[in-house]
């Protein structure tokens, strides 16, 4: 468990909740830079399948991650509400997460997060809001995978 998660456990964190396929996920709202519509991307050679390409965000070039492919859930095809959540990791690396729709915001107590098995590294746990189960996305691991992954031919 990282320092950040330990700190998060003690106090409530505002999370943004979004849907990918039929499942809901959340990330801390402070890591979100902006939410924008999905636009045409530039395909990148030798990219992992979950990278849909690069976009231009006011002069900064970002890669988009299709969370449906990344999280291995069936995507909702032809969904007009697909949006890109632009996030910035604690190391300052930015990327866009392609999600099916943004639902709402929620205050989540760190202690409410129930851990899941360790081998599921992209989620740090599950949390219940009402009777919905929401996965807490581990943003750092997503972003690091993007940057450190050795592009294979």
């Amino acid at each position, binding site marked *: 468990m990282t320092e950040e998660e330990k700190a998060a456990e003690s106090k409530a964190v505002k999370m943004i909740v979004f849907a990918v396929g039929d499942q809901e996920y959340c990330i801390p709202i402070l890591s979100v830079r902006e939410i924008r519509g999905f636009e045409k991307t*530039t395909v990148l050679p*030798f*990219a992992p399948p979950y990278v849909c390409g690069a976009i231009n965000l006011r002069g900064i*070039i*970002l890669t988009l991650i299709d969370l449906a492919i990344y999280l291995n859930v069936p995507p909702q095809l032809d969904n007009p509400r697909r949006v890109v959540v632009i996030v910035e990791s604690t190391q300052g*690396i930015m990327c866009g997460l392609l999600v099916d729709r943004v639902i709402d915001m929620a205050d989540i107590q760190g202690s409410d997060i129930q851990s899941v098995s360790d081998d599921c590294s992209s989620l740090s746990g599950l949390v219940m809001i009402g009777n919905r189960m929401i996965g807490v996305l581990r943003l750092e691991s997503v972003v690091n995978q*993007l940057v450190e992954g050795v*592009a294979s031919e």
Partner: protein
Amino acid sequence: MSGDMGDILLVFFQECDEQLQELERGLSALSDGESEQETINAVFRAVHSIKGGAASFGLENLVRFAHVFESSLDGVRSGRVAPTQDVVKIFLKAMDVLSDLVVEARDGGPSVDPGRIAESQIELESIIGGNAEAHKTDDVVPSDFVPIPMDFVPVPMDFEPVPVDFGLDFGFDPAPVQAPAPLIVTFCPHDAMYARGDDARNILIGLTDAAVAVEGGEITVTCDASALPPFDALEPDRSYLSWRAVLPAEVLEDTVQSVFDWGGDVCDFTISREGDPASEGGEAIAATDAQPSGETPLDVAPPEPAVPALAETSSAVTAAQATPAVSRPDAIQPAAVASGANGANVRRTEQATIRVDLPRIDNLMDLVGELVIAQAALESQCRRNNASMPRELGECIASMQSLTRDIQDAVMAVRAQPVRSVFQRMQRVVREACSMTGKDVVLTLEGEDTEVDRTLVEKLSDPLTHMLRNAIDHGIEKVEDRLAAGKPAIGHILLSASHRSGHILITIKDDGGGINRERVLATAIKRGIIAPDAVLTDDEINNLIFAPGFSTADTISNLSGRGVGMDVVKQAILSLGGRITIQSVPGNGTVFCLSLPLTLAVLDGMLIVAGGATMVIPVSSVVETMIIKPQDTYVLPDGKKMVSIRGDCIPLVPLGSELGLSAAVSDEPRDGAVMLIVENESGARAGLVVDEIRDQAHVVIKSMEKNYRRIPGVSAATILGDGSVSLILDAPALIASAVGRINTKLSDARAVLAA
């Protein structure tokens, strides 16, 4: 070291850099035969400022050396020494040492070789020393010292000014003042006090001031020279003396304490009242009492350490080349170590700063002001909804367009810097290389005012260093060979910079022996860089020197011969988006031409479409474009293709599938598909098959690696006019992957044929 101090120190080191540049410029002018007083003054000022600044930061090593340097320069300034070539050479060498000392003090890196400092110091001293000997032997030399061995004769001259000072400051009756409880001050300076440019004399003056400030106050000073070793064991830059001063009772301890505020950390001192049991032991008093009645010159003229004495009397400096040379390195070593440890605290906090001419900033400011006005105009146009609106709107946008272009140029101008700074550094590289190889080479600079992007200026330093060293080590022949070939004994290298159609062209031209192609070829074959039966053109042979691991040097010297140099140069130039070419005429010399983009931020690119994506390829790497004729292609057994261009077979790279963008699309180059022939710097070529060539444009380079990873075959990305992202292709990498495949096959084939 506190934060504030660190900031000030930072400014000091920045100034040091400027002073060193000034120094270099001045000395270069002197070595070119100029001897104007203003130039000499500028050189002197530069060293003096460094010394002054260093003294306030307690950078002892630096102060000590700058001091000797300054003294010698003063000899030139006052006209006693003529700035001959030899003298200027010594100064140039000293400047190198000085700049190394500055770096040492700044970065706390490896300390400068004390031997080198000592050597340079002795040379410096010899400049004025030799002269002083000629002019000043009839100066006041204490007669007692005459019988001492001849080598030492000039040394006593150090002592000469001191009695004068004492005469001025302490011209009192030395009889002790019988005040009720006189204040007794003893102090013993450490070596460090003199090293940082301070002097015991200043403390004595301070004490005298304190004494005469009270009514009828007098001061009695006695000098304790008991620690003074026999003359032949005397180290001129050590401190041996201590003083005891008796001040009137009215003087407050605090006043005396304040005298030691400045130098207190580099001397031992005690302040006490007479009769105070805590005062210094009777033994010490006895010693001081006994002393003045002792030998002759000492009570009148206490010999001060040689080095600080130089400060007061650069006119009468020692010519003690012989003996101190032996003792000095030992004396310097501890100080160097201490300063190294000191430097570690300072750490490297170098900030990237840039000095810009004010007019450029003003210009930028004006343009931004205009942009704001243009934006307001645009806004009002939009609000006014009338018939002529589209036309006026168009005008507004057009004016904004030209404004943005101007702003872009203005910002580039702010970042632009003359290559002078890097070129001047090369003088030193040449000097060092010359002294290592024993060759005599003159470096001429041309076009130092050519401006290029700041980042480029910095990155030029290493490649140029390598190339100049190579030129001196391999290019310029030995003096005998040069004379035999009917050339002047002194080699000549021209380093020039100029602008040429959006590029900066840097040429390094030497008048050496040129590239020995037979030897290069033989070496390349021996090292397995090329096949033994390869037939290469002259250009290809020349380019072999850029091959990794190539070296013709029989022996590995400090300078070159490890076979990494030119390979590194080529990589560095390539990574800057430049090209490097060689022209070499045997017997006449070699010319290296570097062509570099003016800025690393903008690139001249060709927009192409491959695999459905628009991409950019740097124009600099495209040799030609042509339409492929099916009859010119040949399919290899593994499906890869070769194409023959005017008799040369080069590998064909279908760009779309090479980048994994159009795996499914027919790999078959369509009839009439466009091929770009790209070349890397070693002359290897490949044909990139693309769908179409769309445009040519200046594109702004954006890093992909900041938010993503490295992509093979792609060097960066850019944003096109429509806002979409486009990839910039890495032509050398694409060629390397294509040629690598072919080459292994070719050598296999050759092996088969040979068998």
